[in-house]
Structures are given as C-alpha cells and as structure tokens.
C-alpha cells in the first residue's frame, strides 16, 4: 500500500546531523516515509533514533540537514511548526500533563487566546473512539490512567491535530501483549486513511509484524533500509554489527534440588491506596540455584512486593526470611547485610544521577572505603576501574550517571549489586528499554548468578524473558498469586489468561 510511485514522500529528512558536545548523535542521516506506510526505525540504545525524530518534530534543533514535507522544504523551529506541517509525535516518555483531564490535554496548544473549547475536545475523543477504536474517557484525569490508556491519549492528541505523519517513539515499550495488539489494530485502520507512520523500536518481532520498510541506525549513522519482511537475524546483524545468539536457561542445567528455599515469604500483605491491600496472602519460596519468575500486568502488586524485598516498605502482615534470618520489615542496610541484592524497576531511583559512576558503585558500602573518617578516593577509583572492565560498562569512572545511556545505567546497577556476591537476588524489569546487546548481557549475568547458587526472584512483564530465564513461574493478579507452574509446562496463552484475571475461578 505504498504511495503512488513518483510522488514525493510524506516526510523526508535529508542529511540530518546533530552533535551533543563531542558526541555525534546523528551523522548525516537520510530517512523518508510515504503515505500509507509504516517505516520502522531500528537501532540499539543510543543509536540516535529519538534524536533524529525529535528534530523532525522541532523538539531538538539540528546542526545540519533539512526536513521536507510532501516534497517541500519546511523550517521546523518548534513543535508548533511541525504540527502545522502535519507531523505528530508520541514521545518516548509521554508528554502529557498528569494532573489535567484528557480533554484538557487534547485542548492544550490548540488555540491561543482565551477561548477554551473543552466540549470540542470531548467530541473529538468520542469521534476518534468511533472511527479508530481508541477509547478513552475525556473527563478522566491523565495521571489516573494506565500507561496503555495514556498512550491512546497521546495518539488521539496527534490525530486531533490532523496529523498526516505520526511518529511513535518506542510505543510498545510499556505495553502488555494485548495492548500491543490493540495498538497495531489502530495503526492499521489509520494507515487505510492514508496516514504515514514512523515506528521507532528495537524489538525485532514487532518491527517485522507492522512495518513495510525498516531502516537501521547504528551509532548515529544510517546503515541501510530493507523490506519489512527481512528476517530477524539479518535485522539484528545490521543493528549491532554482529550476529546475535539468544540467551536462555540451558535445558541441561541441573534441576534445583528439593532443598529448603533460601528466600521465603509467608502470608505477605501490603496495604495500597484506598485501604485496599495491594499484596495479599502471598507466600512463596525461592531455592538456591533457582530463578522464580513473577508474571503479571504492571500494577498488580509487583511494585509493592519489590518494595518490601528492597526494604523500602513495611508489610502489614506476613514474614520475609532469608535462610534462618528474619527480614520482615528490614531496612535496606539490613537487606544488604543479609546479602540480598536488589535491582528495582526504577533504576534511576536506585542511583544518584548527579554523582559519578565511581561513587555510585560504592554507594552501598562506603564504610569499606573509609579510613578514620576519610574517603579513600584512590580505592574508589580502582574499584570502579575493575567493575567497569568486568561488567563492560561503556563509561569512565568520572562520568555522571545521568549522562549514561539506559543500558549502561543498568550495568552500573548490576555491577554494584553483583559485585557483592549476593545470596538472594531480587530483580524487576531488568531489561526494560534495553537493546538486544545489553539485554543479552544482563540476562547472561542473571543466569550466571543462578549457576553460582543464588536464589533469584525475577519480576518481569516480558513473557519471553520469563520463559527464557525462569525455572518456575507465578502469576500475580490484583495482589494475589493466581497461578504457579514450572517453566516447561507453561504456555503463553494460559499465562496471558491468568495475567488478565481470567484464571481458573471466573
């Protein structure tokens, strides 16, 4: 369904170059998308995908290059210009005003002056619901919506501005499989209306499922453009410059013994908002040398479970123990002392972004680097150099953590936790937002811990990840365990049903 041959592309970028200091984020990048097509932009973390599209939308200013819409060069100085040219963008981190209603978000920026037409915004929401099946309550507060719903609001916002070119920056990163299907269905109906879609992603399967063409960026340079049907190995090779191997729990690994669990949780209950418990009656055990996967749609108690195991939250009832040690209500320091390593979902909150990599790496054990009250800078640097080499962190000890890419931030956290040789490891969404290379690395490190006999609790929304790594799986729904199975007997469909709350007892 590509555009009429010979006609100009809906959007064309020519020779886009952008530098951030010494770093070249885009090096003379060319890209185009024609009417009615999905053109995917694929690349590793930090490849420059977001940068080039933020330039097209006026959020970033290029050092060189031009933007053409329908064959005519347009000056894009701000998103206002881009919107006027028919370009809409759903940014990687959503651009919605949380405390405002959906209708207010839709009305924002539409008219200057005093007249505010919320009824028109409501009508547009209803209209879009009919035409594209994008259903949202116009009077709901955005902050109260799920991420999937927020994304629908974002798309609606772009469509309400009559955009003909829609840029989606990693739209599936925060969605569960059912939501991804719904998004794709919406996109297909939009394509029939002649919309052009730029789809940024580093998930190969999705890119193949939706795209007519795929362009690959690597370290700011355009590597090439291929058909959407190109096989995954080839795409991965273009993306990382070498063939990829999947990381999986080796089938022949010894099944964990019937030994006593190392990490044991009994009848855990954690209070949530509005007086309803967010975790209830959760009991589980993880043995040494075992990975227990926790499946579930986010918001079903995973965050609270992790908070308890990280020592950030006290349970209302129940016990947590590691070996013979009771850790119920323990604080983070006690958790560290008990050799419980934690890699929480929000990696930015676990590190101090304004401090250097070296300091962040010793944050949990400053006492070891202190002699009679003085910080031993040399030892801290030596320690950082060692971990940077061992965990393949692409940064220098003095770099601020805030300046690192997502993959490297996760490696810093991983290095800090794993270098302490934890007996228990609790991990949440360890590869969210990471590219294939970094994902592979993180997963292999988790499996190495398992082989060393650590008990690993892995919370993830990514079913592929759970099936590839976990020995056993439990499913959380509304704070309760609604299913438990070994990874061998787990099947995707059944897991999906359990995650959606349509388990055994309807």
């Amino acid at each position, binding site marked *: 369904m590509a555009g009429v041959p010979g006609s100009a592309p809906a959007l064309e970028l020519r020779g886009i170059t952008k530098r951030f200091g010494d770093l070249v984020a885009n090096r003379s990048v060319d890209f185009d998308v024609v009417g009615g097509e999905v053109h995917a932009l694929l690349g590793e973390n930090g490849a420059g995908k977001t940068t080039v599209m933020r330039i097209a939308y006026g959020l970033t200013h290029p050092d060189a290059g031009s933007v053409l819409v329908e064959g005519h060069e347009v000056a894009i100085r701000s998103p206002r210009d881009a919107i006027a040219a028919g370009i809409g963008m759903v940014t990687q981190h*959503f651009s*919605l005003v949380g405390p405002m209603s959906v209708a207010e978000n839709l*009305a924002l920026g539409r008219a200057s002056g005093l007249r505010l037409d919320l009824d028109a915004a409501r009508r547009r929401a209803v209209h879009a619901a009919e035409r594209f099946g994008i259903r949202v309550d116009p009077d709901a507060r955005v902050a109260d919506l799920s991420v999937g719903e927020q994304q629908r609001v974002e798309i609606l916002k772009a469509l309400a501005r009559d955009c003909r070119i829609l840029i989606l920056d990693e739209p599936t990163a925060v969605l569960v499989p059912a939501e991804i299907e719904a998004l794709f269905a919406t996109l297909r109906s939009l394509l029939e209306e002649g919309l052009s879609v730029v789809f940024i992603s580093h998930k190969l399967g999705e890119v193949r499922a939706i795209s007519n063409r795929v362009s690959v960026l690597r370290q700011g340079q355009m590597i090439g453009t291929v058909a959407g049907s190109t096989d995954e190995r080839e795409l991965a090779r273009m993306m990382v410059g070498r063939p990829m191997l999947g990381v999986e729990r080796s089938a022949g690994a010894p099944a964990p013994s019937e030994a006593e669990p190392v990490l044991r949780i009994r009848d855990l209950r954690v209070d949530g908002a509005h007086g309803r418990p967010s975790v209830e009656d959760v009991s589980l055990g993880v043995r040494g040398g075992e990975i227990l996967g926790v499946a579930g749609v986010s918001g079903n108690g995973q965050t609270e479970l992790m908070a308890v195991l990280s020592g950030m939250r006290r349970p209302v009832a129940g016990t947590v123990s590691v070996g013979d040690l009771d850790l119920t209500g323990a604080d983070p320091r006690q958790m560290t002392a008990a050799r419980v390593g934690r890699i929480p979902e929000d990696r930015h909150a676990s590190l101090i972004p304004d401090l250097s990599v070296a300091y962040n790496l010793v944050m949990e054990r400053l006492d070891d680097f202190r002699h009679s009250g003085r910080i031993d800078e040399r030892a801290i640097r030596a320690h950082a150099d060692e971990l940077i080499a061992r965990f393949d962190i692409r940064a220098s000890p003095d770099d601020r953590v805030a300046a690192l890419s997502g993959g490297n931030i996760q490696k810093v956290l991983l290095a800090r936790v794993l270098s302490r040789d934890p007996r228990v490891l609790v991990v949440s969404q360890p590869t969210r937002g990471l590219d294939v290379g970094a994902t592979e690395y993180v997963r292999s490190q988790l499996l190495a811990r398992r082989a060393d006999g650590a008990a690993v609790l892995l919370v993830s929304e990514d079913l592929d990840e759970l099936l590839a790594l976990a020995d056993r799986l439990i499913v959380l729904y509304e704070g309760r365990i609604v299913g438990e199975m070994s990874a061998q007997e787990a099947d995707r469909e059944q897991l999906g049903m359990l995650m959606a709350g349509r388990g055994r007892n309807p």
Partner: protein
Amino acid sequence: MTLLIDLLAATLRNATPLVYGTVGETYAERGGVLNLGIEGTMYAGAFVGFAAALATGSPLLGLVAAVGVGLLSGAVMALLTVTFGANQHVSGIGLTIGLIGASEFANRLIFRGGELQRIEPMPLINPLPDVGPVSAVFSQYGLTWVAFLLVVPLAWWVLQRSSFGLEIRAVGENPEAADAAGVSVPRTRYLALMIGGALMAVGGAFFTLALLGSFTLDIIAGRGWVCIALVIFGRWRIGRGVVGALLFSLIYSLQFRLQILPGFGDLPFELLLALPYLVVIGALALSGRNVAYPGAYLKPYRRS
C-alpha cells in the same frame, strides 16, 4: 456590635493588598516560577504609584504607573529565570533587594528626606449606604471592590477556564508536554510573571494611594512574604488563597482591637502583633504536608 462591624470592614480593607499579592504570586507559581521578587515588587508599586500620583495629582495615573512597574518587574524576573535559566531563589531575592533599594534611593533623591509628602487618597465608595449600621462594612476603597468583585473571579476564570490559563498550568506542571503540544513555554511564563507582577504592584500601591496617602520606608513590612505563605496555604488555588488572605487579615485586624480591650492590655503587644504570623505558621505546618507542588516548580526549561 459596632466593634464587629468595624472588625469586618478592617478585615476586607487589610486583606486587599494580600489578595492582589496572592493572586499575582499564584499566577507566577502556577507557571512554574517562584517569584520571591514579590516583596520588592509591592514596595516599588507603592513608591512609584505614590510618586506618580504626587507628580500628576491623579491617584489613577499613580495606579497606572504602579501597573507599569509591576509589568517591568515581572519581565525582569522572566528574563533572569526563563531566558537565562538562573536560579529562582537567587533571582527573586535579588529582585526584591534591588527594587527596595532603588525605591528608597529614588525616594531620597526626589523628596530629599524633607517633611512627609501627602496626596489626596482614593475615596471610599459605599454602594450600600442605607442598610443600617451594617453599611459601614461596605464603605471600602475602590481597589478593594475591584479586588474582590473583579480581579479574583476574573483571575480564577482565566486560570481554570480559559485556553491561556490551561497553558499557564501546563507550562508549570510539565513544560516538555506543553512544548510538544505547540505551546511556547517562554512566552507563557513571561506573560504569567508579568501579569503576576502587575497585580503585586497594585497590591503595594494600595497602601500609598488608598490606605495611607503617603509613602514611608518599610511600608510593605513583609506582606509579600506573607503572600508567598498564603499561596502555599491555598495550595495554588486562587479561591483558597483568598480565604487565607481573609483569615490572616481577620486575625491581624482583631489583634489591633484586642490591644485596646481591658484584660488584654496586660499582654505584651508584641505577642498580639505576632499572632497573625503565628497562625499562618501553624496553618502552614498543618496544611503544608502532602501538598502537591506544581510539577515544574523551580525548574528552568530548555530545549536541547
């Protein structure tokens, strides 16, 4: 009874500058900028308004001059914090020190410290003169009527119901989102700060043009800081802020009347003077927990 009527009239009168200041500061802060220049802006409004009124013989022109200096003060604050991205605390305190200093300097220069100059203050207006003794409550300055009947409802409507107000709130909550939606963050913040500055300056001018008819040093006496507290007390809502201003003013007016009452005369009057401030501190301590600050409070916004 007369005491009560007198107290109510004084409450409305004394609340007037606080209402202008609080509404003005609310605009600045909802746009994401803490304007600590408020104390200085009120001071400059009081002085410039007075000087212009004295020179022209017209309090109305004095008011216009005060509005002008307020717009200018807001624009300077915007230049520092929006255009240059400077620290908001430092910029605001600097602005206050600068404006108070400049006003006092100009005061010396123009009036050479001679005898106190006076103008004919704005008259009291009473729309309800024939409703018995209660009518004294309604004997108020024009600026008081404008504050409560025009400025407060209009400011509320613009902020909550108009497209411009939506932009101010968006820019203060999430400037990235506002920018991505095509709203100019700098333009909106400039406007919010300038409107806010104009209101603050009118609040200051109320003292010289209406209440006192003269300019004295330290005329604002920390009321700008009180407005900062009232904005937090009101949780960045105009209505609640105005309620706070009335409450403060009520206690302020009450303590003056208590001082002359038998029985209270034995209390140190400093304690009574401190009463309204103590109540504000208490109210802030109680209501100040779990407040939701505007999301982009104190944060400059820069596109990369």
